[in-house]
């Protein structure tokens, strides 16, 4: 029987190659799933991966991939910094919601005043909302040694309830006949975040995502903080002796990831979503975790992974409409992607050897 053997150093080939292999494995297993559902697997895979890009209406779908990928990339970039340092912010969804609420509230407070200052203030408030929400698990970890995974995750549910409360309460559209949801920010010019070039799906959130990708790249490769982040993740003890202040690192990493999640929420609520409603959040904060890992926590990888997830989302809906695939099968398909990635990841640190050769290798 073949056995797994730990590699002396992690394989660079496998670290780079697993995402590609995971996508291929997902296509095979997903195709099998679709075949079991009585659909043509080749057509289904083509509809999900090819049609959004190159079909007759690709011009529209390509813009929609950007709409989906923008917030995913923005959030994932922030998360990746913490993940590299071993700081696990799982609650980006909550920070995304709080950014949208605080940023949206600032916009609504100015309604119907016009002026160039409204949107920048909303951006600041959006980032602040995310930061404040992320500071709760950060400070609790520093002060009381709580687990930031649990605290940040639980705060997602708190944020969801705050969202419901404001949608039905103080931020409800006064002209909405008692129905929940705020005024539509995308119809309020001073607060709106429309496509910068109509029909491209590229709004200020896209600009922010591109900017942050470049900043993160620079930070990780050139800046002292980036070095400290990498060191803390790879060798915590060395980092300690190297003078890294772990508390400060927690604050910085949680703060950055919270700010970016909050920004993503603000750009979404003022742009594609348009309004705060009880169901405003659709899981970007959680999907971004998949994006971060699929992208190997590398800025460029995250861009590719974000686009890929956006692609399957848009393609999945087309497959539903054209082929009658159930929505649940598309979700399962996306889940497989992470599953295979984690499974294949084993080969980065381990290699397969024929049975019985363990001693020789040692």
């Amino acid at each position, binding site marked *: 029987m073949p056995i797994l053997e730990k590699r002396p150093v992690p394989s660079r080939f496998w670290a780079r190659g697993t995402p590609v292999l995971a996508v291929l494995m997902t296509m095979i297993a997903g195709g099998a799933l679709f075949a079991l559902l009585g659909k043509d697997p080749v057509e289904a895979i083509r509809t999900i991966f090819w049609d959004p890009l190159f079909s007759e209406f690709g011009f*529209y779908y390509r813009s929609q991939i950007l*709409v989906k990928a923008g917030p995913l990339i923005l959030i994932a970039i922030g998360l990746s910094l913490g993940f590299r340092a071993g700081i696990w912010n799982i609650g980006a969804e909550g920070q995304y919601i709080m950014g949208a609420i605080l940023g949206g509230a600032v916009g609504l407070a100015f309604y119907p005043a016009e002026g*160039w200052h409204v949107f920048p203030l909303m951006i600041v408030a959006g980032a602040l909302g995310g930061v404040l929400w992320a500071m709760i698990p950060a400070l609790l970890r520093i002060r009381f040694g709580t687990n930031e995974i649990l605290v940040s995750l639980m705060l997602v549910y708190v944020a969801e309830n705050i969202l419901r409360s404001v949608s039905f309460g103080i931020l409800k559209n006064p002209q909405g*006949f008692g*129905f929940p949801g705020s005024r539509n920010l995308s119809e309020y010019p001073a607060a709106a975040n429309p496509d910068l070039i109509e029909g491209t799906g590229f709004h200020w959130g896209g600009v922010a995502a591109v900017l942050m990708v470049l900043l993160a790249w620079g930070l990780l490769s050139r800046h002292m903080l980036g070095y400290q982040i990498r060191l803390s993740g790879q060798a915590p003890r060395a980092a300690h002796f190297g003078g890294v202040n772990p508390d400060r690192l927690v604050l910085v990493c949680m703060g950055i990831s919270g700010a970016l999640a909050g920004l993503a929420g603000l750009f979404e609520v003022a742009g594609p979503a348009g309004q705060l*409603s009880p*169901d405003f959040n659709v899981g970007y904060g959680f999907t971004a975790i998949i994006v971060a890992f699929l992208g190997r926590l590398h800025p460029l990888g995250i861009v590719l992974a974000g686009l890929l997830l956006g692609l399957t989302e848009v393609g999945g*809906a087309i497959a539903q*409409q054209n082929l009658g695939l159930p929505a*649940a099968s598309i979700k399962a398909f996306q889940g497989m992607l992470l599953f295979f990635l984690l499974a294949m990841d084993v080969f980065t640190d381990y290699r397969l050897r024929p049975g019985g050769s363990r001693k020789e290798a040692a």
Partner: protein
Amino acid sequence: MKRRSFLTSAALALGIAGLGAGAVTAGEKVKAGFVYVGPVGDFGWTYQHDQGRQAVEAELGEQVETTFVESVPEGADAERVMTQMALGGANIIFTTSFGYMDATIKVAKKFPNVKFEHATGYKRADNVSTYSARFYEGRAVIGTIAGRMTKTNKIGYIASFPIPEVIRGINAAYIHAKKVNPDVEFKIVWVYTWFDPAKEADAATALIEQGVDVIMQHTDSPAAMTIAEAKGIMAFGQASDMSKFGPNAQLTSIIDNWAPYYVERVKAVIDGTWESQDTWHGFKEGMVQLSPYSDKVPADVQAEAEAMKQAIIDGTYHPFTGPINKQDGTSWLAEGEVADDGVLASMNFYVEGIEGEIPQ
């Protein structure tokens, strides 16, 4: 406003594509798209809309082709799916959740030749109709039955979101339960979801622990019905006949019957007679129905329920007829006065006697 001044000059790629889409050509199949907020297997809201879609296929056969996308989140995703349907050649698109309202209006603007039908909203346009059902008529009847059937005089109500439609249903049920049983008390649980079997089941269990022996729900899954069956109490189904989940528990079920409306509207597109309108149908038009009463409901109660239903159909009785006071004791409807549709459509208060506050 410099920020956006350079945007206006950009061409509306989508607008150009939109102009041609949607026009019906003679001899071609009419395409009808349906956007669902839940899964078609929810046995409630979305399930019934899908039954309507299937009725369109069955009834109009070769003349029509239908497609649907399920579990579509509100907001940007809904907008994309609607656009996708319009680009795919749909002539009429049914958007079956309140939260799709702004997206529907937005997409409708880009595709002036495609007809849109938005369920339960209030924004219309030349190519956007709205439609909803007077479920409160059904709630008045089940309220009467509940008032007669309860032994503990405690009736449980699983409510989704504090929106006018849900509040209207609670009021209608309460007024009529109270009328036949002055000792009746309502226990209301807000679950803030339309479809979450686990949460709905928890709510049902909590209500039963408070001594409730009849459960009504304004959520979509049959989870509460299953709990009622297991605990041996009574319940009313929602949206579809849920008797297979509670053969002993279910007294009757309010059924949303969208089929006649969907067939009529798709046919109007085929005939070229479609016009934007606002529809609010009830028992009379068959959009609201009751599933067969359980044997547990005594004959005289069945007769009473049927008489009320008939009176509503004939127009001789309106479920909101005064005197009715608001919860705070102020007068809402004077003796013999009937509520007008405008007030009903935006109802945001409980009637007198209901305990607790509407969550804000």
